[in-house]
């Protein structure tokens, strides 16, 4: 189904190739899991299979990539689309339509399919991907998991033999990932070939026929599905891989009842468009600890974060800081939110300008704070030229220099590989040890375990969805 013959690929303007001398073949009906650290070449392989790099990439390719008997470089993309169905990482930006039904049928409409053909495709997509109840809805009314199901249905509707998925779980919560796993099972049952790149291994490892481990642009090792499952913890960690077994989010613990330092929330209630999002929310987040807020999508975690930061008004209840009640405007000065898409909160044209924005700190103070975040050598760099982890640290530095003591992280590890996830948990621990109050919204069980966070019992039991 797929043949890579001594394939080397370098992106436009890059000296070192992202993929070097890669040779493998995939038989029809196999499920192949591509894994390895960020930048190891997983995405490059995916985009060579669906032809995006050969046709729109502008880099240099050596060797041949064959898919379904066709040379990808010689086949137009619209023709490849009949053989290869693609599911991308970011549910936000892979939808071309504003409604779900058109999105599922997008590929068929593009190739001028008949009305009957489309009706059949809708029917079978509803069965395989479970999207029946999602049809005829606005894309923006869907959760991340539902969006990814629509993306799979959209690929399925075109009837391809091969599916490529590029980190499809990056933005999903536990429930969304379980739904994705069901779709993978259906694809296997239908004898479709699947090639997927992924950091999170626990939901897919036992479905894989073979696992390809990439490092530095090379296909370093190939495992059979069974052999991969028997890797020991040490081997897995030294390879820089995330846990193969599922690590469930630890169950909530009652808040510590020590002295009144840090954050305390009592009987909070918030509404959105008149309907209650949650009520009776009470918990503590002491200084010096990492407090985790977990729960399914739709439980209102983001609403809670916005409320704690004073970005929205609570309906009733009180938020205390060191024992004193804080009004909304005071919370804005005390709390800081590090967003999931950190790009949306970096405004300056250099790192130094960025961190001095909106406060009265001197240049010396700013440089000291940058130094604490290991960013001193980037003071003159443009924030957008930093790596993802560096951007996150810069946002933290912004908060610290503005004298914020309550730092709230929204999904800081989504889409991160093992090494970067460890780095984030170490960083958060350091911040807590400096006496800050760290609150983190997450679904990542492995990250919770590594960071030593405790899970707050924030939602009253009877209000849990």
């Amino acid at each position, binding site marked *: 189904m797929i043949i890579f013959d001594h394939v080397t690929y370098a992106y436009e303007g890059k000296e070192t190739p992202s993929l070097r001398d890669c040779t493998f073949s995939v038989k029809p009906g196999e499920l192949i899991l591509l894994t390895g650290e960020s930048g190891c070449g997983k995405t490059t392989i995916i985009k060579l299979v669906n032809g995006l790099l050969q046709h729109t990439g502008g880099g240099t390719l050596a060797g041949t990539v064959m898919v379904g008997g066709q040379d990808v470089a010689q086949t137009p993309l619209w023709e490849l689309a009949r053989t290869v169905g693609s599911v991308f990482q970011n549910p936000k*930006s892979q939808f071309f*339509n504003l409604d779900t*039904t058109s999105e599922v049928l997008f590929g068929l409409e*593009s190739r001028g399919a008949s009305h009957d053909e489309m009706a059949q495709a809708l029917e079978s997509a509803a069965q395989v991907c479970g999207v029946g109840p999602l049809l005829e809805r606005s894309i923006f009314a869907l959760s991340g998991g539902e969006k990814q199901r629509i993306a799979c249905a*959209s690929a399925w509707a*075109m009837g391809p033999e091969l599916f490529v998925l590029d980190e499809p779980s990056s933005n999903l919560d536990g429930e969304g990932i379980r739904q994705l796993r069901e779709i993978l099972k259906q694809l296997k049952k239908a004898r479709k070939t699947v090639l997927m790149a992924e950091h999170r291994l626990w939901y897919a490892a036992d479905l894989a026929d073979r696992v390809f481990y990439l490092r530095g642009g090379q296909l370093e090792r190939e495992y059979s599905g069974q052999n991969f499952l028997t890797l020991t913890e040490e081997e897995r960690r030294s390879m820089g891989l995330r846990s193969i077994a599922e690590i469930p989010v630890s169950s909530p613990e009652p808040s510590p009842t020590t002295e009144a330092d840090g954050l305390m929330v009592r009987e909070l209630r918030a509404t959105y468009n008149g309907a209650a999002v949650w009520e009776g929310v009470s918990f503590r987040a002491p200084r010096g600890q990492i407090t985790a807020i977990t729960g399914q999508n739709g439980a209102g975690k983001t609403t809670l974060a916005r409320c704690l930061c004073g970005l929205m008004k609570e309906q009733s209840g009180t938020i205390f800081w060191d024992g004193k009640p804080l009004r909304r405007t005071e919370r804005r000065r005390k709390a800081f939110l590090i967003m999931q898409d950190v790009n949306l909160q970096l405004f300056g044209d250099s790192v130094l300008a960025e961190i001095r924005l909106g406060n009265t700190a001197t240049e010396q103070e700013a440089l000291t704070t940058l130094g604490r975040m290991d960013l001193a050598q980037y003071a003159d760099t443009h924030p957008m030229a930093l790596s993802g982890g560096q951007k996150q640290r810069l946002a933290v530095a912004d908060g610290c220099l503005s004298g914020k003591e309550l730092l709230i992280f929204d999904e800081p590890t989504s889409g991160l590989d093992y090494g970067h996830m460890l780095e984030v948990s170490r960083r958060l621990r350091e911040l807590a040890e400096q006496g800050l109050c760290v609150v983190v919204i997450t679904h990542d069980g492995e990250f919770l375990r590594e960071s030593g966070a405790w899970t707050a019992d924030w939602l009253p039991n009877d209000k849990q969805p």
Partner: protein
Amino acid sequence: MRTKNIYPSFLDPRTKILIWLLANVVVFTWSPAVFQLGVMVAYLILFLVERKGTMLGGLLATYLAILAIQYWLLPLLPGSLATVFATVTYFILVFPCIAGGAYLIATTSVSQFMAALERMGAPRSFSITLAVTLRFLPSLRQDLRHIRDAMALRNIRGFEEKLECIYVPMLMGAAQTAEELSESATARGIEYPGKMSSWRPIGFHIQDVVVTLLFLALCVGGICCKGVLP
């Protein structure tokens, strides 16, 4: 399996574009007030036919609020402030155009729009660009909400400062969205050289003729009666 159709396609997209252009003619030739009102009432009925009551409600509320400013607030305000608010009332004049545009966007799916453009003979590259623009606006609005939150937490004040801060992240976000969007579209065969089809049927019916004639009458009537009626 299908419970309801969120785009019932009462009118063909081409009709919607045509009547919107006609509505613009009525507004910008400064036709007599009764014809402007006629356009508003026509759109009001169209919104109701397509069951977009909530959207209509929002539009009407804005309209009434501005009317209220014009008739009650303006006479009470001191001169300098009144000039500032007077610009708001310009909104009333172009309101039929805004309602028409909202109607067009709210009742047409991206693929219907593309299919209609293709049947009008527009090149694929043009219809793709237009469709992406339609698709873009809502995701830009989402980005903007996050940016506004981030600015509030950073104590960024002042119009100019804010504008500068919005600029960079919006642009970066837009560039990335555009790239990923086009990847996803090309990987699903949007470049197919043959004819596209559309799941939601498009085509002309009797209601298209009736509505077009109505708008045409408003347009012609407005121009002819200019100076005769107030």
